[in-house]
């Protein structure tokens, strides 16, 4: 009896979580535009999207931005983590506090402070400003992901390798890279999804000439519910779900 109630509870929660998404997906392939009744399968709304130049360019911009931001953030975060791992010193505490501050500070505050900063430094709003903002909010995630994996390793591994005659590069690339690559890939993929889906910070630093997908969706949402938008949202969901599935596979192997 008790386990039945528990199962029912789980079922209700998952149902509530996934029902709206399910409806969204179903209506993105429904034939008619305004009816709530199922009129048969049709991919016409996806074709409408395919022919929409503006959405394509926003999609392209978002993808390029997400990939660039995630690569730079992962590289920068990885180098920093490795350095602190091999040469642990007091500075790490201050970095940790800085990261904590960055995580606690609401996205909207980061957005407006960067907007003011770009205004003061005369940097035009567009790709570069978005890239800087995205790298800044991805970095804490990258560092925390890689650092939690590094904590399970022994820094002496590196010095052993050096003693046995490995060069610095060889010690890093042949010993740490194989041990760390699931964490590195997870960090990169998660950074990509965060960057690809970010609305709040981007809203302030995107400027008017450079459109990215989440902001395009936002402006469309405010004008109402349409099947094309359902299709667009379905595609966005799929693009963010794929990296999560990969990350899940990677981290499960470890345990």
């Amino acid at each position, binding site marked *: 009896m008790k386990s039945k109630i528990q199962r029912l509870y789980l079922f209700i929660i*998952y149902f509530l979580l996934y029902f*709206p998404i399910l*409806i969204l997906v179903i209506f993105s392939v429904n034939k008619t535009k305004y009816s709530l009744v199922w009129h048969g399968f049709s991919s016409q709304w996806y074709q409408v999207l395919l022919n929409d130049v503006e959405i394509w360019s926003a999609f392209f911009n978002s993808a390029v931005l997400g990939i660039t931001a995630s690569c730079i953030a992962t590289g920068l975060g990885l180098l920093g983590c490795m*350095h602190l791992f091999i040469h642990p010193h007091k500075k790490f505490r201050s970095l940790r506090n*800085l990261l904590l501050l960055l995580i606690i500070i609401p996205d*909207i505050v980061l957005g*407006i402070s960067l907007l003011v900063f770009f205004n003061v430094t005369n940097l035009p709003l567009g790709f570069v400003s978005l890239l800087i903002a995205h790298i800044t909010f991805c970095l804490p995630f990258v560092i925390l992901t890689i650092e939690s994996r590094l904590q399970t390793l022994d820094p002496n591994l590196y010095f052993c390798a050096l003693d046995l005659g490995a060069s610095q590069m060889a010690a890093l690339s042949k010993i740490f890279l194989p041990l760390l690559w699931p964490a590195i890939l997870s960090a990169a993929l998660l950074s990509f999804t965060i960057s690809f889906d970010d609305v709040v910070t981007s809203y302030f630093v995107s400027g008017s000439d450079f459109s990215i997908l989440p902001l395009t969706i936002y402006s469309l949402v405010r004008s109402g519910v349409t099947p094309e938008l359902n299709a667009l949202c379905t595609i966005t969901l799929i693009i*963010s779900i794929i990296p999560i599935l990969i990350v899940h596979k990677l981290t499960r192997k470890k345990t």
Partner: protein
Amino acid sequence: MKNKSLSIKLLYTWFLCFAFIPLLLIVVTSFLSKDAVHLVKLPFTLNNYAVLFTPLFMKIFIRSLLISTITTLVCLLLAYPFSYILIKSKIKTHLLLMIMIPFWTSSLVRTYALLSLLKGNGILNTLLIKIHFITNPLNLLYTNFAVISGLVYSLFPFMVLPIFNNMERFDFKIMEAARDLGAGPLDIFFRVFLPNTKKGIISGCILVFLPAMTLFYIPNILGGARSFMIGNLIQSEFLEMSDWPQGSATSIGLILIVLIFVYFVRFRGKKQ
């Protein structure tokens, strides 16, 4: 070693330039006056902070706090038993993945999904009318109810994950030991299980409460004029009214609320 010490310097420089200095700029801006052409001008003034205490602003602040608190409580009440059942489940990893998916996917898209569900001629109303539960469509959208359900729907996974991670480390044998020593179910819960999982609850509350106040697009999409929150206020001050000093002062107010909240929950958590 030279190139690697460069890497750490790069990291610090990055945070200094693109996080710390911009935040300082906000503090400076909040003491300046508004200018129609250059956005800000001298002299320094405390006026922007005085405005925060006018009834109009206080109303928005209190409403934000209220809505965020309700959201946090609803999430906690739903997520706590949920995480417990999840821990005990045999297909834990799969169930956890199904929480990770909404955690990482766009909350804007999920808010939109909720919009098509709640609207006047949406699925929910149509269904309720079909089963003759109601005769006229309910006005669900553009209310605080819609905003709170949108926030709960978006932030629920942020409450589950920390609580789940914390409970996973809890040794359930302690509960058996307590039972053997004669503790009743209520005693076991309040004196053994709850104190041991408190850290997870605190992290979860922080992760839900803070975004709840600032995710301005959720009240914007689902709420009406009466669900205007701090996030919306800052957004409109910066982008619609171009009143940067006032917007900065409002953000400083927000940061103070955030710090007080975090300090309060963590301090209370550590003391006991």
